């Protein structure tokens, strides 16, 4: 439902009525074929929001080229006709489909739902009128989103970085961080937007790729690259790409001369006043909640934080203050893409928690007619040639191609369609296939990568096996790339159609392969993430086996005190542990380890071994790895030698039991990044800055006279944690920055300790007397991770954390289906992020568990027993271990070696086919015969 806004939410969890206002599009979605004629004729140009106002669009437009739905819309504010009927109407005249409807009106829908998930996102801070940075005044001061559009191939300059003022190439760019973040004076946004450091580095690196020799400088306060693999990217940007990083706040941006150059003045790290000139200044603008979202929160009666984000508990990070209304993404605080995606899944899990009884009540499976048996029928190929509006027909003589197709051997019927993919054509295709008893179908149109599934459904609806189908890609790989040569493009379209016809002639029906799913999940690890995942799955009605290696549940979390927002962790943990223990659907295996694992999605078999060395096997459909992390035991700063030097967790314990060592101490020195962001471990442990700041605040609260120093590399109190950092500074905690090459030194002088650190302001070493020295030690993966990774054949990253399938879009999935990761096994993270990922893993698991079976496609390797001689060359090359050597008896009772394919493991890649010396194995749909026919057809003319 696009162009829709929620105007009211009534009811309660399980039964809401949501009022949705649908704004008029003025374009009939069913009729619009997205040919773009309307936009060509539209005389009105306005700023394009998609391009962050760096370019123009028409009043009738499509948001972006790959938009879904790909349907045009009219901007009522800009449209000439809608403002003065009768004055223009050019689009309505030109539209070949008659889709323009100026009489379209606003509609209101009342929709009954069980739960509401709010994912309204953020807006970038608008620096217009901030004066200091000259945005809106000097054309070469732009926002990061605008730079993003300039760098994009689909942007206004097709990826060429030029100055907005004069179109000249850019040589020197400055990025200014924290514009609209960590700044209460300028905009009232005191929080950190969490993503700007990383996007600025990325843009600086990409800009340098676009413009060789480009100089890029990033002016920052703290470099907050705390996400997985972010610090490595930061190091690469500095060392390999040559991005310059300057720690300072720029005072102002002023014009230099009339050419559009800009002058920056700032105080550098050595305390010197500097003036520097740049061609372009990019403002790394922060994120904030848009006005319309605040209105929505009001309508839904949702509590917000002082920073205007949805208020959530760290233990229920996607639940708003209203039961049954959930939040995910930047609405509950600024966050990056993987965290947002995780929360999207987590919100699904949280919603499913309350809706589980009504699962599958409103959804329905599509049904198809029984398949026609084509065995013994002579070839009757149907060819459908698509015009794709003017996309193909504009550059290819489609009629000529269709006439030619009719002459090809085996072809019984040819049609031409304006849009073969449109809904009415699908109905027509079904009719044509039935009437003409067609038994193979070729569509000459766009790419099978996007459209093959649609046509598979269509021919299934016509009673044909869905694999009796082939596409000729005459758009993406023909009409669009040979726009200037109609004759050649037409000839190539004929060739491609001939090749597709030749291939499909050898295509037989294939069966999709269904694997039943064991509706049971194995959760490995009984820490916070494992418990949260198990709990949610059980609430959704799925049984769980929970395995814990130690003798206690709760993992690291039971040793922690408060979350960043001040929620008491042990208390919540005991509640969660109790719930898990009391849940009949959860079986807990304490002091038990995983020793063997086999199987695949839906059908894993894992062998567990308990402390008495007893083994048992568990069948499960899904595996969630939540093995957590542990702390590093450092070799630095005299940790192993002196009782005054303690780790943060040890300090917490001493503080909690009111140990004399703490109560009698007056001077505390916290040293950050002990083992993190170091040579061996170039990653951020993410939680330590906040942890030390919290401890410092507690100490100061107890006795304001205590002297507290935090020695840090970059303070990474991201998102709304920034308020803690501010509070600590206000309370008099002293923050001193150090660099990796100038680590602090711990000295013992006359029985007392002092910490030596370089003072950047005074340019000399500073000696701090210390009664206690607290080390923020790194979080490292648990030592069982490596073995587990081998057992389940899943990858680890450079540092031993589990590697997800995709850093951005699949942050909880493994590349292998049916396996998921959650919590610190994936990367160090605080409580609410661990829980979000655990819920996400549960949601992803539920997408499998809620089905009775998984369907795998029919594109699998098949063995030809007449040719396979059991040489087994294919066994070793198969990357999925899907092939095994077996012995089989032939009709005469003689035994032969032969290979066998496990269809559930086979991905149809065909490495076996490329290796086989005897043509004994090939992939269905890409057999030797089919490829040869294609080659022959390609070279036939």
């Amino acid at each position, binding site marked *: 439902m696009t162009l829709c806004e929620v105007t009211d939410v009534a009811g309660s969890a399980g039964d809401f009525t949501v009022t949705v206002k649908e704004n008029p599009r003025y374009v009939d979605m069913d009729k619009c074929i997205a040919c773009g004629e309307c936009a060509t004729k539209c005389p009105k140009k306005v700023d394009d929001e998609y391009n962050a106002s760096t370019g123009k669009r028409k009043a009738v437009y499509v948001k972006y080229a790959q938009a879904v739905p790909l349907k045009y819309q009219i901007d009522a504010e800009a449209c000439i006709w809608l403002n003065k009927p009768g004055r223009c109407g050019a689009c309505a005249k030109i539209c070949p489909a008659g889709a323009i409807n100026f009489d379209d009106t606003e509609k209101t829908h009342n929709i009954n739902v069980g739960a509401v998930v709010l994912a309204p996102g953020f807006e970038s801070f608008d620096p217009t009128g901030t004066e200091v940075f000259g945005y809106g005044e000097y054309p070469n001061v732009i926002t990061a989103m605008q730079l993003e559009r300039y760098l994009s191939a689909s942007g206004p300059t097709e990826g060429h970085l030029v100055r907005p003022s004069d179109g000249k190439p850019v040589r020197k760019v400055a990025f200014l961080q924290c514009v609209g973040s960590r700044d209460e004076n300028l905009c009232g946004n005191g929080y950190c937007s969490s993503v700007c450091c990383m996007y600025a580095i990325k843009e600086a690196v990409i800009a340098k790729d676009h413009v060789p020799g480009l100089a890029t400088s990033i002016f920052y306060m703290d470099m907050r690259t705390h996400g997985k693999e972010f610090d490595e990217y930061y190091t690469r940007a500095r060392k390999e790409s040559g991005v310059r990083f300057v720690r300072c706040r720029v005072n102002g941006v002023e014009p230099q001369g009339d050419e559009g150059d800009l002058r920056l003045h700032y105080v550098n790290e050595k305390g010197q006043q500097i003036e520097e000139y740049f061609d372009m200044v990019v403002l790394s603008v922060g994120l904030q909640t848009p006005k319309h979202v605040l209105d929505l929160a009001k309508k839904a009666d949702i509590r917000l934080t002082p920073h205007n984000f949805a208020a959530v508990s760290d233990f229920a990070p996607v639940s708003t203050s209203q039961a049954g209304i959930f939040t995910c993404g930047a609405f509950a605080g600024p966050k990056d893409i993987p965290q947002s995606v995780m929360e999207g899944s987590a919100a699904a899990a949280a919603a499913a928690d309350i809706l589980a009884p009504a699962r599958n009540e409103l959804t329905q499976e599509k049904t198809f007619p029984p398949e026609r048996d084509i065995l013994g029928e002579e070839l009757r190929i149907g060819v459908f040639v698509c015009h794709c509006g003017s996309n193909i027909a504009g550059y290819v003589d489609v009629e000529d191609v269709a006439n030619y197709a009719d002459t090809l051997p085996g072809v019984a019927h040819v049609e031409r369609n304006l849009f073969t993919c449109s809904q009415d054509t699908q109905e027509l295709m079904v009719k044509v296939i039935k009437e003409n008893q067609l038994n193979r179908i070729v569509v000459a149109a766009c790419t099978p990568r996007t459209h093959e599934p649609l046509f598979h459904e269509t021919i299934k609806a016509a009673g044909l096996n869905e694999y009796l189908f082939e596409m000729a890609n005459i758009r993406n790989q023909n009409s669009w790339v040979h726009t200037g040569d109609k004759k050649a493009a037409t000839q190539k379209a004929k060739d491609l159609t001939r*090749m597709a016809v030749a291939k499909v002639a050898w295509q037989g029906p294939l069966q999709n392969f269904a694997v039943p799913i064991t509706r049971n999940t194995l959760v490995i690890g009984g820490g916070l993430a494992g418990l949260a995942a198990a709990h949610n799955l059980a609430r959704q009605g799925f049984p769980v086996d929970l395995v814990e290696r130690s003798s206690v549940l709760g993992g690291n979390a039971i040793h922690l005190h408060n979350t960043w927002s001040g929620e008491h962790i042990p208390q919540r943990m005991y509640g969660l542990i109790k719930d898990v223990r009391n849940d009949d659907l959860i079986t807990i295996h304490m002091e038990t380890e995983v020793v063997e694992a086999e199987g695949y999605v839906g059908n894993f078999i894992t062998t567990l071994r308990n402390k008495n060395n007893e083994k048992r096997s568990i069948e499960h459909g899904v595996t969630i790895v939540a093995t957590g992390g542990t702390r590093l035991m450092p070799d630095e700063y005299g940790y192993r030698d002196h009782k005054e030097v303690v780790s943060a967790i040890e300090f917490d314990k001493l503080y909690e039991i009111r140990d004399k060592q703490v109560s009698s101490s007056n001077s505390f020195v916290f040293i950050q990044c002990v083992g993190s962001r170091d040579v061996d471990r170039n990653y951020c442990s993410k939680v330590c800055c906040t942890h030390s700041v919290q401890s410092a605040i507690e100490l100061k609260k107890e006795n304001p006279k205590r002297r507290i120093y935090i020695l840090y590399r970059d303070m990474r109190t991201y998102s709304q944690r920034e308020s803690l950092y501010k509070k600590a500074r206000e309370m008099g905690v002293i923050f001193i920055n150090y660099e990796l090459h100038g680590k602090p030194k711990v000295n013992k002088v006359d029985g007392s300790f002092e910490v030596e650190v370089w003072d950047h302001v005074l340019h000399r070493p500073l000696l701090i007397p210390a009664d206690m020295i607290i080390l923020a030690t790194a979080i490292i993966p648990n030592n069982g991770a490596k073995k587990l990774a081998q057992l389940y054949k899943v990858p680890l990253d450079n540092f031993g954390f589990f590697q997800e399938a995709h850093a951005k879009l699949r942050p909880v999935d493994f590349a292998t289906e049916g396996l998921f990761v959650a919590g610190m096994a994936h990367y160090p993270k605080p409580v609410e992020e661990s829980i979000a990922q655990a819920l996400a893993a549960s949601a992803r698991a539920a997408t499998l568990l809620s089905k009775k079976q998984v369907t795998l496609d029919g594109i699998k390797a098949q063995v030809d027993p007449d040719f396979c001689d059991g040489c087994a060359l294919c066994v070793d090359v198969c990357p999925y271990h899907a092939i095994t050597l077996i012995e089989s008896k032939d009709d005469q009772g003689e035994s032969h070696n032969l290979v066998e394919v496990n269809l559930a493991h086979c991905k149809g890649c065909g490495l076996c086919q490329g290796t086989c010396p005897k043509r004994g194995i090939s992939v269905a749909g890409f057999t030797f015969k089919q490829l040869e026919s294609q080659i022959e057809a390609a070279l036939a003319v």
Partner: protein
Amino acid sequence: MSYEPKIIAFCCNWCSYAAADLAGTSRMQYPPNIRIIRVMCSGMVHPEMILKSLTGGADGVMVLG
């Protein structure tokens, strides 16, 4: 008549075939002499397929993956 070579390209569905699609989406222009055969992985292409193309009259074969 000028020399117009015929080139057979075996393209992996997941990378080079997708790239060829993207070239279209981006309207990049290239000579129309190439005939792409889609495979599920470039590792699927048996040496015999390359020989078959060459003996069948192709002037060049590309295996892209």
